[in-house]
């Protein structure tokens, strides 16, 4: 390995340590800066969702505009377990993840021959189907009012019980552990031979095909994995709010996730998390000043796309190389 590569991987390690330190210590440094722990929890969950969208967008080159559907199905799945079936947080997460992931796997099989804008359009259409089911089927989903009441349940860890319902810091660490598991799984997949075939498809589908990669199958697998991650994030989101909202499945929610990914930098692994931080903190701050906060986030988005086409993190990385 050349000196340059050694330096590069040393920097990467340092950045990784810095990111995890910041996340682990967030409940301590956020309040002095005017934040609060629950805001950090929201950032983690929405950041995970944006990273799941980017798993497909940034690393396979496939844009889904309906990913909120899997997010929302995860939330409803988790909520329904807690409301109707069993008072168990892990079971809720498991059920929500499976429900959204499997729904994604089935519909993904119908999608994989579409490309580009056509793929995006069909994902919007599928997503809206689920949105209207959640919106209309009031007896099961609570309709427009959303699914409630249900509450995340204390975790029984054998030796101790952690009260994640009332202790915001304990809940933050619980979500951080869940986040870390998913992010580690994503990183692991992207470093595998299969992950490299995803990059190959992103870079040049024709070349990938003529290397002998069955492109449709690999896009389907990447899509399905991404849906599972998305539904997992959605399950956690239901726990964050103790509530599942039909608007969580709406295409505008999908758009928010894509916006976070693009703003943060879709070619970088951590970019979408940065995008989610900017988005959520900005939303939290501006929405306390005006109800028209979306105008300002839209304006910010346009600025980022115009001046930092590779996203905020992409811009920082490029400047360091130059």
């Amino acid at each position, binding site marked *: 390995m050349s000196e340059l590569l050694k330096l590069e991987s040393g920097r990467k390690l340092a950045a990784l340590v810095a990111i995890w330190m910041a996340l682990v210590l967030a409940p301590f440094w956020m309040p002095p800066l005017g934040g609060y722990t629950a805001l950090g929890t929201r950032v983690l969950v929405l950041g995970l969702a944006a990273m799941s969208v980017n798993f497909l967008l940034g690393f396979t080159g496939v844009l889904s505009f309906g990913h909120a559907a899997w997010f929302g199905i995860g939330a409803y799945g988790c909520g329904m377990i807690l409301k109707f079936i069993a008072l168990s947080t892990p079971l809720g997460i498991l059920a929500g993840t499976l429900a959204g992931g499997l729904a994604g796997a089935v519909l993904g099989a119908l999608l994989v021959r579409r490309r580009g804008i056509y793929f995006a359009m069909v994902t919007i259409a599928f997503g809206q189907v689920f949105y209207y089911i959640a919106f209309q089927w009031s007896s099961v989903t609570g309709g427009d009012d959303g699914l409630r009441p249900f509450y995340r349940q204390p975790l029984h860890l054998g030796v101790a019980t952690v009260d994640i319902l009332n202790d915001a810091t304990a809940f933050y660490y619980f979500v951080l552990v869940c986040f870390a598991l998913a992010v580690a799984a994503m990183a*692991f997949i992207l470093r*595998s*031979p*299969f992950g*490299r*075939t995803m990059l190959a498809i992103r870079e*040049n589908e*024709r070349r990938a095909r003529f290397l002998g*990669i069955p492109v449709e199958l690999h896009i389907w697998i990447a899509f399905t994995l991404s849906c599972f991650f998305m539904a997992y994030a959605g399950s956690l989101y239901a726990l964050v709010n103790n509530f599942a909202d039909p608007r969580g499945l709406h295409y505008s929610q999908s758009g928010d996730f894509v916006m976070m990914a693009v703003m943060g930098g879709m070619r970088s692994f951590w970019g979408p998390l940065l995008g989610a931080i900017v988005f959520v903190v900005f939303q939290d701050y501006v929405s306390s000043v005006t109800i028209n906060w979306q105008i300002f986030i839209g304006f910010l988005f346009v600025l980022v796309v115009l001046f930092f086409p590779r996203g905020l993190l992409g811009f920082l990385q490029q400047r360091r190389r130059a």
Partner: protein
Amino acid sequence: MSLLEVNGASKNFGSLVAVREVSLKVEKGELRAIIGPNGAGKTTFFNLISGFFPPTSGTVVFDGQDVTGLSVAKRVALGMARTFQITEIFPELTVFENVRIATEVAAGYRLRPWLGRAEAADLRRRVEGTLALAALSGKADRLVGELAHGDQRAAEIAMALALKPHLLLLDEPTAGMGDQETYEMTQLIRRLHREGNLTIVLIEHDMRVVFNLADRIMVLDQGSFLAEGTPQEIAANKAVQTAYLGQAA
């Protein structure tokens, strides 16, 4: 038995007949060139062989097996690899990664979640071997998109070689190259053919390259077969001269 046998292959796009009942037999170890004026249907013919699209009629037999209805992935698995007229590579990945992906797919690792230590080491050796063959060892850590045109072409060929093909299809390997790059590419193809004992079919416009390399030449004109023979026979062929230069006054 011929390695590649195309029997009366045609391709229509609507009412346009791009390739009309062209047949071709390529023996193991042969280096065959396909030439013809622009629009002769050479690349379309390549696309029929490599499975880019199916022929309207006719069959393609590879290594004794009818592959006419097989997917690209299956043809690649049987040992067919190709390059394109416009270089098709993974521009934002390094040369090493480009060739590594091809090598992993050829090794059957494409769905693997991880590689064992021994597998990874063996794979690395194979990638380095392929890079050396294509004279790219010194550029392994460079992004392919940042290389000179000639090196990008070499990288594309390296990816095809990593598939361990029995038949290599090269679509205008020297297109857009200067004299020095053309010379190096010719040397590379000759090495692959002579030392690697690889069967090669290439489309080429540069006649110096064709007459330097080819054992036999097939000429297409306006989608149809025009002539076939050794370079000397083709050079002396009146019909070929007419196709290229127009009717003598």
